[in-house]
């Protein structure tokens, strides 16, 4: 699967003082980079960030679920957020405006990636506080984390969860379907091997 963010970079094969090669990002791509860094601060997964920036359906789905998790909170798992900027962040994320052209508002007081010794994304931070969260938020965190283990955890919680909103009912159905599909795919691969 294509995991790149579609940034045009030029590569200079001459090492810097630290011995690292230098990459130059075209100024046309700085907006895209800005948006990718903010989305990465929430999700911590380049594959997901690339999907949000490229696919309208992934953008809408993740915007809805993330908003459900952070709405009305000025701090999530120790990460401080500016509510006003968060509103503007979601306003653009929900729209179909081009993320290569318009910049998302930065809702983070400090970017999670810049916090020393801590989790590098909001989802990663939220994962450390799962025991303090209600079941719907736990399901959201597991689902947004999007790893094989988290799918299993999300499915285990979703199986006995009574959704209180249409969004969570849809998410429950989606998680159980994804889990069933993943199980069937593994079984099928074993069977035809």
């Amino acid at each position, binding site marked *: 699967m294509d995991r790149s963010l579609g940034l045009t970079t030029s590569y200079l094969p001459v090492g810097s003082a630290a011995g690292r090669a230098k990459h130059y990002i075209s100024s046309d791509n700085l907006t895209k980079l800005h948006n990718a860094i903010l989305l990465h601060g929430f999700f911590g997964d380049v594959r997901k960030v690339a999907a949000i920036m490229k696919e309208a359906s992934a953008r809408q789905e993740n915007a809805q679920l993330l908003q459900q998790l952070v709405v009305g909170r000025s701090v999530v798992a120790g990460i401080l957020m500016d509510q006003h900027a968060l509103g503007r962040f979601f306003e653009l994320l929900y729209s179909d405006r081009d993320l290569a052209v318009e910049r998302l508002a930065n809702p983070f007081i400090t970017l999670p990636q810049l916090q020393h010794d801590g989790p590098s994304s909001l989802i990663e931070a939220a994962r450390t506080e799962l025991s303090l969260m209600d079941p719907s938020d736990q399901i959201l965190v597991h689902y947004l984390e999007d790893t094989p283990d988290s*799918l299993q955890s999300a499915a285990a919680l979703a199986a006995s969860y009574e959704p209180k909103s249409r969004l969570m009912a849809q998410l429950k159905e989606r998680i159980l379907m*994804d889990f069933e599909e993943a199980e069937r795919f593994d079984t099928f691969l074993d069977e035809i091997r």
Partner: protein
Amino acid sequence: MKYLLLICLSVIVAFMPSIAKAKSLSLVQSCAELVDIYESRDEKKFLASQRTSLSESFRAGYCRGVLEQHRASNNRHCSSDWYKRAKFIAALRNHEDRFSDSVLLKKSCDEY
């Protein structure tokens, strides 16, 4: 859905009179997808499903089908281990222009 695609492609290709008719798909890339899927499967439970797109499943099924069809239509001995043959073909992913599909299929038979 993904496993349905994989099996449908395998079946369709296996009954095709000639593999030449489906030339627009790269055999090497398709076998590389097939091997990638199994490597994900071996790496972690449920990873294959999370990492594999519908188009990747489609290509993987094409490789599997071509290997089956080639073995079935070949009179001489050819290994039944299609996974080893797929790995052999996938290993040439950076040199695919050097060999035709029929040469690759024959070589994968000779090898395993």
